[in-house]
């Protein structure tokens, strides 16, 4: 066990699965980098270096650079998955889903159902999401609610390096199409990550802490923010449970409801846009199934319903903050009818 970054954890998971299973291949724009160019081999290893080192070990037949043609290569990954390979395809930024979404939701996501259960599509689409990079409106979105909305897809949001490795290993071994969302601000986050391969099952939420006052359900990068808020609140005697669902599809409804019922007070934190988002979905789940246990309205902490802004001051105001989570928890904790 050693400290590893989110980036290293992902790279290690992919490399270990490629060693274990010769049908695992990697493809994406600049996943090797410098293809056809006069400089270094393995020039980039992905735009933020997640796939660095894979080509030298596994060769160009298994680590493929693609042209900037997301429809073609994401579709090719789906077709390859249906015909015997286990592709790990990178959609560089989730914001680019708009140019290839048909191949994801109408093709890969529906093969199994449309073909009467006869298709198996072990596809992983890795993609970067989230604000915080001053990358503006077209490189900063979350968009995972759109994938979650689509039956047939599984949607994974690792919240730490340990989670990233175990969930990626599971994603590659999984026989269904998986959208694997990596928060671009988290690649240098570090924690202890086992050297050996391990899996974290989908649909099993993780309680990063348990308390009796308020339940905070948070996703992806927001899990860390929720824990920071909970640390501050603990000092004032407000103890929180923090639920990391890990996957939005499948969603661990049971754990979310159990925690909501135990505390009767819930804050849901989501970096995605508020309308038709995960926060609204989870709030509705709790409202419909745990109404009698609620002592306060479910609060949602989300960005405003705007595109992600560029100016640092605006972007900082856009992303849910530890302070906003803390304030929402205090509101909910102090609520009485």
């Amino acid at each position: 066990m050693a400290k590893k970054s989110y980036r290293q954890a992902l790279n290690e998971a992919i490399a270990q699965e490629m060693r274990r299973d010769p049908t695992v291949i990697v493809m994406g724009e600049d996943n090797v980098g410098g293809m056809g160019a006069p400089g270094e081999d393995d020039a980039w290893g992905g735009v933020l270096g997640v796939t660095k080192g894979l080509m030298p070990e596994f060769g160009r037949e298994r680590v493929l650079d693609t042209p900037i043609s997301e429809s073609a290569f994401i579709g090719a990954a789906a077709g390859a998955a249906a015909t015997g390979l286990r592709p790990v395809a990178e959609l560089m930024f989730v914001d680019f889903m708009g140019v290839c979404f048909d191949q994801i939701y109408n093709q890969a996501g529906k093969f199994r159902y449309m073909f009467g259960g006869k298709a198996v599509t072990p596809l992983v689409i890795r993609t970067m999401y989230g604000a915080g990079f001053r990358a503006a409106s077209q490189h900063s979105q979350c968009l995972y609610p759109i994938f979650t909305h689509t039956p047939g897809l599984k949607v994974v949001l690792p919240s730490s390096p340990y989670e990233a490795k175990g969930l990626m290993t599971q994603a590659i071994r999984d026989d269904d199409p998986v959208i694997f969302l990596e928060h671009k601000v988290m690649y240098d986050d570090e924690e202890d990550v086992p050297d050996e391969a391990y899996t974290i099952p989908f649909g099993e939420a993780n309680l990063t802490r348990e308390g009796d006052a308020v339940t905070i359900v948070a996703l992806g990068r927001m899990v860390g923010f929720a824990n920071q808020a909970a640390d501050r609140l603990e000092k004032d005697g407000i103890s929180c449970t923090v639920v990391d669902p890990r996957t939005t599809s499948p969603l661990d409804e049971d754990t979310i409801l159990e925690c909501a019922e135990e505390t009767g007070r819930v804050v849901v934190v989501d970096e995605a846009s508020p309308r038709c988002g995960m926060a609204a979905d989870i709030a509705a789940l709790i409202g419909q199934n745990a109404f009698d246990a609620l002592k306060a309205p479910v609060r949602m902490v989300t960005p405003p319903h705007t595109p992600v802004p560029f100016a640092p001051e605006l972007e900082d105001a856009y992303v849910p903050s530890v302070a906003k989570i803390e304030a929402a928890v205090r509101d909910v904790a102090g609520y009485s009818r």
Partner: protein
Amino acid sequence: MLQLSRDDLALAYKRMRTIREFENRVHEEFSAGKIPGFVHLYAGEEASAVGVCMNLGDKDYIASTHRGHGHCIAKGCDVEGMMKEIYGRKDGLCGGKGGSMHIADLSKGMMGANGIVGGGPPLVCGAALSAKTLKTGGVAIAFVGDGGSNQGTTLESYNLAKIWDLPAIFVVEDNGYAESTASAWSVGGSQVKRAEGFGMPGVEVDGHDFFAVYEAAKGAIDRARDGGGPSLIHARLDRHFGHFEGDAQTYRAAGEQDKLKAEVDCLKRFRQRVTETSLLDAKALDEIDQQVASLVGHAVTAAESAQPPSAEDLLTDVYVSY
């Protein structure tokens, strides 16, 4: 004549005849209100599907279009299972969950009809990548219409297939109309020159002529199997029915369809060619006609009496595990 034996020719005729009979029966049964949804019929285009697929085996993949029944039959899908699927029956080829536009049988290398115009070519790049990576010796064929040839997915796939050097073949079935819009208007440049623009060989064939399609496909498929990379076939042909069943085809010239059925029908041409050259006799072809009528008639009867899926089937087959 080429490498085709008499048995091969009889099989090719049987498959083309099966497609024609199948589509004629679907036309009748749909008109009678027995088939739900909507259907797009392949009658008239048989020489293309069969001319290409006579060169393929189960390790080879095809992806089809919304007009997919012919490709399914040509690739060896079970005719009764197909008819049941079109009727929405539980023991249809896809359990009644796919219907006409989504018939697939991966065990036969049939990756599916496709409700999205231009949906298939990227998938075929993937199947070709699997064949190349796993060294199966297989090839993959994308059938697209003249409408699909204008989708970005198709053009991106030409490029990807070329730069990845994939054993992929794109067969543009140009029946003259994308829905109601003439390909003479909607297609800029030429299909063959588009292929050449991406560095692939392209060839135009008379899609009413089984032998021309077979020969062109054989060249393209042999080249791909030998590591020669992707190519394109532009087959000019005609559909006998409308874009979908119920299409009044007001966009066609008066008498256009009757003329093409009389003058360029691929089945008539095949029959004429093989009987004039004494490869098959009329009696043998007539017997095939009877066998096929019986096969398709039985499929319709079986589909009519088959059970629909049960309520529980609604929830199954979404995921392998969830």
